[in-house]
């Protein structure tokens, strides 16, 4: 009988000690916020386009952390998916076509003589990249535009075009020597792969 009591006391003591240690650790090493969400958010392209079905990049980052698929971001494309897969240590998947196809980087362009100054696009722009006032012609700040498409739909006179960003000699860069550049050498190498 005594042994049982001692055992219980010992276990209780142990529980108390470890409980105290755990409690202390949880206070001492408390993690502020959820850094993984920030890290995921870092990787997203911040176009705030909502193509993923979430109202912005951060909500999608939160959703990814809570288990949503990582392949719903068309502006980020495969490279973002790969980076996310790398960060979250999951298998990279191809882009979910349901949410749109990967496009080259775009900027919005307002055909200014057709603009009637309705300010609808101003309200739609998630990053305040359109300048203008009521009944004044609007214009897009090219450097700030994320190419999210959101201003195109609200325009009553359809005067907004999405144009691909062109390469100039200043932004041009060499590309990696491609395997396709050596025809016949490893022509069959890519067979069966979805590239």
């Amino acid at each position, binding site marked *: 009988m005594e042994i049982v009591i001692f055992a219980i006391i010992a276990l209780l003591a142990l529980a108390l000690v470890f409980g105290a240690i755990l409690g202390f650790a949880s206070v001492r090493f408390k993690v502020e916020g959820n850094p993984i969400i920030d890290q995921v958010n870092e990787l997203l392209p911040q176009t705030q386009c909502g193509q993923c079905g979430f109202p912005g990049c951060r909500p999608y980052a939160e959703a990814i952390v809570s288990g949503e698929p990582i392949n719903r971001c068309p502006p980020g494309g495969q490279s973002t998916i790969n980076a996310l897969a790398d960060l979250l240590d999951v298998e990279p998947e191809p882009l979910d076509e349901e949410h749109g196809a990967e496009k080259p980087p775009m900027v919005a362009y307002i055909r200014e003589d057709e603009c009637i100054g309705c300010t609808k696009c101003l309200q739609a722009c998630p990053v305040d990249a359109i300048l203008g006032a009521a009944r004044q012609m609007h214009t897009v700040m090219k450097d700030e535009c994320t190419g999210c498409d959101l201003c195109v739909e609200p325009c009553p006179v359809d005067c907004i075009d999405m144009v691909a960003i062109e390469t100039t000699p200043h932004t041009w860069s*060499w590309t990696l020597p491609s395997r396709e550049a050596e025809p*016949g*050498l*490893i022509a*069959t*190498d890519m*067979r069966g792969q979805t590239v």
Partner: protein
Amino acid sequence: MTLVRQTSPHARSPNSTQQIMKWVLLAAVPGLAMQTVFFGWGTLINLVWCILIAVGSEALVLKIRQRPISFYLTDGSAIVTAVLLALALPPLSPWWLTLIGISFAIIIGKQLYGGLGNNPFNPAMLGYVLLLISFPQEMTQWLPPVGAAGHTAVKSFSEALFTIFPLFGHPINIDAISMATPLDIVRENTSLTMKELWSENPAFQYFAGRGWLWINLAYLLGGLFLLYKRVFSWHAPMGMLAALLVMSTLFWGGAGSGSHGSPLFHLFSGATMLGAFFIITDPVSSATSNKGRLIFGAGTGILVYVIRTWGGYPDGVAFATLLMNMAAPMIDYYTQPRTYGHKKPNKGLPEQH
């Protein structure tokens, strides 16, 4: 007319991978010659057989992998692998032993990793170790060298040929004439002093093994030629030989029966020189920076001595090389040279952000 468009530099040195492989093969000739002189035609027959299998299996895999066969075969790497393995095998190894060893080396040791340049291990040593573990008896049947009793038994070419390929003729009974290598004898020896060993056992001559001394000298010569030709830098061979010298000096144990053999004995016996100049200088599986290669060589030298002296195998070059191959990436991470304009060299892996 269309002008050629390509990235700079437009000028290129006449250097090529094929050229390097040719030089390596050329440098191996003296060693091969010495081995043939001392152990008979077996090595040469093995060599030819080995090259045939190597090229054949390489072509087979390239065909399966749907790669252009002639483009990859002409780089000569399969032949070099075959030569190195053939030189390391006992002279009268049966044909199937060579077949297993070299096809394993080429198919699994090299091509399955992605071909030349992608193999983490030295393919020839991988094949050698496979055979050593699987067929220990066949792998230790070395013949008595010229000058030692029993050598005359395999003097003719046909005898050697039929011993290797018993299907076509009458083989000689290899078990009856084979003898242990000097390294093995010294390792097993517990009763005789070194002096007695050298005077009584025909396997020894001068300060090393009979024949082995000359074979090692021949490989040294070939290695010096390659150094001169700048096929590789001095770092890895120097590291290995220096480490072996230091280890064998430290654990020499004098001339008594408990001796592990003199430093010179270790430097000029077994596969020391072959290993130092032909095996560990394989650039693909060794470390990349000069400092790294020095460490790589030194590590191999230490391991070679440890395995020879306290391990279970008569020679340790193959095991030591493979072990250091495994360590090569880590050596690389910690031996990056100091880049121009940097105070300190980078070490280790990049910091994760």
